[in-house]
């Protein structure tokens, strides 16, 4: 029989419930309106939502658990409950007294304080004693490459410096159980390489690792077990190769539920709410050219995804007709891969293109302005968190900037011919 000391994380019928009546950004007016309407839960449809239900798994020491599933399947919630951010609402979970920490950048930082002071503060939030922090502080400062800036307030830092400091704190305080929501890559190319190495070193040293990722390559490389979550329940749990194979097959089979998403960030909180995003752009290019940029793989790779990301031509499938498949994988530098999938709902060349996926629907209309210019309106109704909204809009804007450049250079080259 296995001794208990062989196990790092054990969960049995684990459940986490969200009370939909309690929502942030809820104002009194909103609540009063609901009460006036007769029932607080009526406007929401239901008053509770199980983000996780009946989740059972046992992770031994030295193992790496890969967690896969679509957005909203409960992956982040699972990390939160293992980290002890909230207790389970059903079932049981134990880490046998070991600390489990989610690797995050700059949690608890106070921008008014200096970098050095923030090292202490950030580490204290993670529950590390002063002694432990003091023994690591020099190594943290050195790793961050901040030099004398460590004595300057963090508010004066660039975002890259902040990320470097946050990363350095996070990786030097080695938790016994490490929780990772995507592999983080920060800073310039040199620091990225260094941080990836440090991260791998950290995963080696942790007693167990739980890794959430959208990259099946990363999961298959690192995980010893895979937990596939689907709608908050365990769809499959077992050996990496078996589960991953089935997960990928199923993902490709059910394209109806997939949708392109441009530049997703890690750490999404769930559940999500419907968000409407509308972006209007006028391009100095004929409509036919804009249409082709959206519907031909060779054109799409030149601009798809925000700056810094690269769409891989060999991963693209574009069956541009109603019900047809859309599939592309975006790569960030040489680290993170984000596969995107969707299905075309409406294809009206060259006026309108509608794509649908797990988050909702994106409709793009192209209007010929008659003077050689084209107005493009993207209207998306997607299920994301409020927090992700800004990031999504920024990613779309960045991608459309690249589209504008691409169109300009295409026109330029055609004029020269």
């Amino acid at each position, binding site marked *: 029989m296995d001794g208990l000391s062989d196990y790092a994380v*054990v969960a049995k019928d684990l459940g986490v419930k969200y009370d939909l009546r309690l929502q*942030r950004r809820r*104002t009194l007016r909103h609540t009063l309106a609901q009460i006036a309407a007769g029932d607080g839960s009526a406007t929401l449809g239901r008053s509770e939502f199980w983000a996780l239900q009946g989740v059972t798994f046992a992770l031994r020491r030295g193992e790496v658990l890969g967690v896969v599933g679509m957005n909203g399947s409960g992956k982040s919630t699972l990390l*939160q409950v293992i980290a002890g951010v909230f207790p389970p609402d059903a079932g049981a979970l134990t880490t046998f007294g070991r600390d489990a920490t989610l690797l995050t950048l700059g*949690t608890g930082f106070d921008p008014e304080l200096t970098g050095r002071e923030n090292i*202490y503060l950030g580490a204290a939030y993670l529950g590390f*004693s002063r002694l432990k922090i003091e023994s690591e502080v020099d190594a943290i400062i050195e790793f961050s490459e901040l030099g004398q800036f460590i004595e300057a307030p963090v508010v004066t830092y660039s975002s890259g410096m902040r990320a470097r400091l946050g990363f350095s704190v996070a990786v030097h305080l080695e938790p016994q159980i490490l929780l990772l929501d995507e592999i983080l890559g920060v800073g310039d190319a040199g620091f990225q390489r260094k941080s990836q190495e440090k991260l791998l070193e950290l995963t080696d040293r942790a007693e167990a690792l739980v890794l959430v990722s959208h990259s099946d390559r990363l999961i298959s490389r690192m995980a010893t077990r895979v937990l596939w979550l689907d709608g908050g329940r365990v*769809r499959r749990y*077992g050996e990496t190769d078996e589960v991953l194979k089935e997960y990928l097959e199923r993902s490709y089979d059910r394209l109806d539920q997939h949708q392109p998403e441009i530049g997703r960030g890690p750490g999404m909180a769930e559940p999500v709410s419907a968000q409407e995003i509308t972006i209007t752009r006028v391009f100095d290019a004929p409509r036919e050219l804009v249409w082709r940029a959206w519907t031909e793989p060779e054109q799409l790779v030149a601009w798809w995804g925000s700056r810094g990301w690269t769409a891989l031509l060999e991963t693209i499938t574009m069956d541009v007709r109603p019900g047809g498949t859309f599939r592309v994988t975006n790569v960030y530098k040489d680290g993170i891969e984000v596969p995107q999938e969707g299905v075309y709902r409406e294809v009206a060349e060259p006026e309108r293109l509608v794509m649908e996926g797990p988050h909702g629907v994106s409709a793009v209309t192209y209007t010929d302005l008659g003077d050689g210019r084209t107005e493009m309106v993207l209207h998306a109704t997607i299920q994301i968190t409020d927090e992700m909204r800004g990031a999504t809009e920024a990613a779309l804007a960045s991608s459309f900037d690249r589209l504008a450049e691409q169109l300009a250079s295409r026109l330029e080259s055609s004029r020269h011919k």
Partner: protein
Amino acid sequence: MTATQADPAVAGPFDLLAPPKRSLLRDAWGEVRATARYSHLLRLLVSSSLRTENSNTVFGFFWWVLDPLLQMMVYVIFIGVILGRAGPDYPIFILTAIISWELLVKATQGSAAATLRKERAMRQVAFPKTILPLSQVIGAAAHFMFAFGVLLVVAVPFGIYPSAYALLVLPIALVQVTLTTGIALFISALNVFFRDTGKIITYVFRMGFYLSPVLYPVTVVPDRFRPIYDLNPFVTLFDAYRAIVMEHSLPDLSSLGIVAGGSIVVLALGYLFFVRLQTSFAKLV
């Protein structure tokens, strides 16, 4: 085949795993123990908030002195000079109450802001969240003790010299801090869910300021209102502070005892309220 049942991969010591017994009191006790474990974080939060709050101002720490004095001057000019009804020691009379009232307002508003500002940390890290309001209350209490020292100095030109009775500020302030912590816990938990809370309390405090004997002595309140009026714990607290500073006498111990008992009840209820809601802090959309 359901994967979790038949899959040999899911072998594990599940039989040994019983759902933990949870109750509000158990959770509250767990929170207390966690707070002790995280006392290092509490200390850092207090010291960093005390250091950063005036760090961008020209006068910096002088604001610790200036704040209560300027407030006092505004009311002295308004009531003493314009309305012309104030005795010679009126500035000290109101300053005593103003610094005590500031402790309540600063602690509560700071706590309400703290639970909103640290949203991200609350979602990502498992730390005892009561530390956020506690650090604000401790910071405000430190301000108060400092301002009390200023009060004793400022009182000298008015012919009021410090006496040994001034040391009684410690037990009296302890009663007030107990009460204030309970209120701050309640307000800061509520503010996570209803952002209006922060706005509403601004007006509640403003009304409370005039309904409490800050600018006037209790004796101006008509006798028939006194039974209700005296339910305000600040009637007793201001009275106690004024007794030890201005009258060099013991405060009314029986009413202070009642307020102390009530404050402990408020603290307990505020703590339980916060602990009950805090598991939902990280689950908000």
